[in-house]
């Protein structure tokens, strides 16, 4: 039986984090990762801590990684420039690479073959946020789909695992696991792989990081 995982919840307060963790458990998720820890631990779901590092320069990223790696279960880097994307692609402390959701920023900044070559075989993953695919305007949505599909083509060619997360900042933006896999159909991802994107692949990241923490003296 699959254990569904939402690796990207972005609540604004610890109370909202708790509300979102509870909702995630009702929707059928087993694990979530939130950028703010919930006010009280929720019994029905395991919660991991996550940080999204926004960096424009490689040096900024290195400093942020030094400060944050041991404090968070999951470390994601939003690649705001090519320099940061390259640095994140080769740094073992990074779990997830994600790219800006704004098509204008993404136009000159995407997962290229060079970065993909650096990520290949390392266990780092490329993340797609379903919040990017929720209806805004058809024009914007079509642009976002084109840009994500371009990245996915590169990721698939280099066997880079892809994670699908909600990227929800409010409970209203959260969806049940099957809705996320259905949204992946917009990106021409087949149903089985879409299910892996929200279960086995993110679960492996959490397990790997827990194992690393246990190994440390």
């Amino acid at each position: 039986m699959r254990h569904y995982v939402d690796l990207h919840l972005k609540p604004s307060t610890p109370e909202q984090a708790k509300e979102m963790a509870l909702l995630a458990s009702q929707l059928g998720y087993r694990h979530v990762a939130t950028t703010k820890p919930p006010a009280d631990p929720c019994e029905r779901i395991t919660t991991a801590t996550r940080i999204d590092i926004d960096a424009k320069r490689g040096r900024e990223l290195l400093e942020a990684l030094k400060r944050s790696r041991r404090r968070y279960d999951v470390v994601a880097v939003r690649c705001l420039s090519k320099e940061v994307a390259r640095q994140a692609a080769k740094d073992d402390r990074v779990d997830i690479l994600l790219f800006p959701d704004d098509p204008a920023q993404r136009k000159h900044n995407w997962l290229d073959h060079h970065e993909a070559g650096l990520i290949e075989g390392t266990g780092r993953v490329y993340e797609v946020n379903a919040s990017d695919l929720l209806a805004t305007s058809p024009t914007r949505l079509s642009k976002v789909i084109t840009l994500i599909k371009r990245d996915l083509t590169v990721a698939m060619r280099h066997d880079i695992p892809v994670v699908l997360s909600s990227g929800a900042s409010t409970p209203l933006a959260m969806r049940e696991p099957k809705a996320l896999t259905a949204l992946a159909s917009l990106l021409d991802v087949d149903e089985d792989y879409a299910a892996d994107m929200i279960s086995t692949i993110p679960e492996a990241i959490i397990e790997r990081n827990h194992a690393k923490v246990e190994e440390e003296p």
Partner: protein
Amino acid sequence: MMPVRGIRRRYLLFNVTTGSTPEEKAIWETVRDSILTLYGVKGLSLIDPNLIEYNEETKNGIIRCTHDTERFLRASLASIVGITDAPAAFRVQRTSGTIKALRKKAGIEKPKKEADK
């Protein structure tokens, strides 16, 4: 020999989370527009959606589609973020191949109009 149905259907029980109380017509128009945005007129024809019922009190509804387009309907429902300018989310709770089984599983009674027939 058992008669074979020409078109197989899927029935989806959904719940709408929103602060307002949208009417059935608004729900239908929102779903239809979402399908049109994502898949166009051809997609709408293939999915062949039909809002079977919607309860304004519980905000639960049943919608039908063709058997092999369930994923497209789910994607269309998932991508809805608002109804008549109020933020909203559609969440599918159960699915079934027959409306009778869906109602039984979800513990929903037949609407009065239908039960009277």
